[in-house]
């Protein structure tokens, strides 16, 4: 899921020049590195290819793209359109869907649980995005300043490789109110223990912390890759001018990193809005709806109450929300512009 959403932003956020450089450096042995530049405009500018060649390639091309196009049509385009259609129907899986117009939307706007779960989701997103981005940024910058060790980078990436389910389970165990190590230590230090996942006030912050733990390394490495594209001459110039480390961080690193920071923020926002696994494994939306995030609510509607029509409406709302938030962010951040050029 991550990987998919990550591709989403790559085109708009990075200038093509950066793309070429990273392709060349990161793929290791690249005899083509230099040719990448010259071959940037494929097809159109190849004089050797004639109209005849175009006709000759067509049958082969159709065969080669067939599986992808079929997959796109059947499992992507069709479900997307069907999802929109279903959101206007009353559909309980076993009987055929019945058109009800805007009834689902009316129900949604008057649905207190929906508004509550939207609020809970936004709270979760705010926490995981702010802490996630801040910690990833600092980690990446510190890593970049003191070491090139790819072992260390690998270590911080470890949580990214295990499933959300395992991350959720181990944290649930560590945060266990009576036997968890975190509470043992807390009791030792303060005399109190905290119902991390079991109390209304702590459930969302705890889930956000788990999510930050799981994703921090991944985003830190994205930012780290961005740092590597900033030429060191810029810092040397800064040093000659007598800039301090903090000044260089604020005046050089952050502005030059903006496209990548925007991308990281947008990715965290998109991922956090769709949070499900860790909630489903730990709190199941509880206690008393305190962590009933949107995706959890949709799942509940569809698979516990079998109200597919309404669940489709809720997904459409989440989709619309994601698109709006993403575009607003990209626009606000002027993500396409890099200060590097």
């Amino acid at each position, binding site marked *: *899921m*991550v*990987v998919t*959403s990550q*591709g*989403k932003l790559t085109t708009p956020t990075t200038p093509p020049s950066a*793309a070429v450089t*990273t*392709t060349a450096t990161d*793929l290791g042995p690249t005899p083509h590195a230099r040719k990448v530049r010259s*071959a940037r405009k*494929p097809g159109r500018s*190849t004089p*050797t290819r004639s109209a005849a060649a175009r006709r000759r390639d067509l049958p082969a*091309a159709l065969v*080669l793209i067939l599986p*992808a196009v079929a997959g*796109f049509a059947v499992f*992507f385009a069709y*479900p*997307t359109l*069907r*999802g929109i259609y*279903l959101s206007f129907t009353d559909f309980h*899986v076993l009987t055929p869907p019945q058109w009800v117009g805007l009834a689902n939307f009316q129900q949604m706007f008057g649905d207190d649980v929906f508004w509550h779960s939207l609020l809970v989701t936004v709270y979760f997103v705010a926490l995981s995005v702010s802490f996630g981005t801040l*910690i990833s940024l*600092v980690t990446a910058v510190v*890593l970049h300043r*003191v*070491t090139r060790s*790819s072992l260390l980078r*690998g*270590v911080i990436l*470890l*949580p990214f490789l295990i*499933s*959300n389910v*395992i991350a959720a*389970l*181990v944290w649930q*165990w560590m945060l*266990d109110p*009576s*036997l*968890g*190590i975190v509470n043992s230590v807390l009791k*030792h230090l303060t005399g109190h223990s905290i119902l991390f996942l079991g109390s209304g006030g702590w459930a969302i*912050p705890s889930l956000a*912390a788990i999510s*930050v733990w799981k994703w*921090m390394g991944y985003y830190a490495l994205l930012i*780290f890759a*961005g740092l590597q*594209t900033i030429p060191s001459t810029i810092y040397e110039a800064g040093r000659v001018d007598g800039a*301090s*480390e903090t000044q260089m*961080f604020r005046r050089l690193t952050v502005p030059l990193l903006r496209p990548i920071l925007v991308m990281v923020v947008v990715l965290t926002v998109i991922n956090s809005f*769709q949070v499900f696994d860790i909630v489903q494994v730990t709190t199941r939306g509880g206690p008393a709806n305190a962590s009933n995030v949107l995706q959890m609510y949709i799942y509940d509607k569809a698979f516990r109450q079998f109200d597919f029509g309404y669940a489709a409406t809720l*997904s459409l709302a989440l*989709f619309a929300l994601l698109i709006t938030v993403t575009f607003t962010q990209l626009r606000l951040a002027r993500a396409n512009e890099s200060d590097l050029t």
Partner: protein
Amino acid sequence: MAVTLAPGPTATAQRHTRDNSRRLPLGRIAAWIYLGIVVLVTLFPFYWILRTALSNNYKLATNPSSPLPVGFTWGAFERVLGIASTADAQAQGGSGASIDIALYLRNSLVYASVQTVLIVLFSAAAAYAFSRLHWRGRNLVFNILIAALMVPSVFTLLPNFVLVKDLGLSNTFGGLILPGALFQAFTLFFLRQFMLGLSSEVEEAAIIDGAGPFRIFFRIILPMSSAPIATVSLLMFVNAWNDYFWPLLITNSENVQPLTLALGVFKQSSPQAAPDWAGLMAAALVAALPMLLLFLAFGKRIVNSIGFSGLK
């Protein structure tokens, strides 16, 4: 955890300002201390999984903060692997209900590897057609496909569930694998981007020798793209291995369910009052082990791929 970490950044920043006149060691020390904390917080849960998995579940309660396994035993692993007798399992705090982890392991392997092989093959084929072949409408079709990146998976999940159910494929490997096996915008985009940059000299020589597009694809383009294909395969495999939501929707029998779901089953089957944490952690470790092994083998490639896939 966020709470513990939050002071880190500010502290580092302040120290940076202070030492500026003297430069170094202090700033460097602060940086290393920060990194030390990050690594500790990152790795500790992994250690805790191991420590708990090697403990006796009943005795865990007697010494919850012991850094070493409490009442060291392989019992939890035996319960998870189904080689402990029911009596033994219950004596150590297990439920006695066994899960057939070998079966779930097989399911995860089938799901992740079949899906990875298919999606990478089909994406590479399409990427080749979209990058090296020349045909009318190429860019238009590509742009339509790539628009899929804009639709979040949450939106297609429910209709896809209905579709797969209508096709009679729910609770089969077909239904589990197929939706993600033919087309994924990211893999296609990733591989096409690489193939666009390949030199055309070898290809043109092959054309002069009379090789057709398929021959060129299998004999020239695929081998030349082995590095990005390996990278994208790793990412896809990790993704499928860790997938939870789609299998949760589409499967309900242990003949198809992957390990991620088995962990949930295992958790629910243990008595509510005192979950079998030792057993759960042992199961988690077994489930995570393939990823950890992959990481040991291909760590560097995975680490480098992150920057690449994110930036490109």
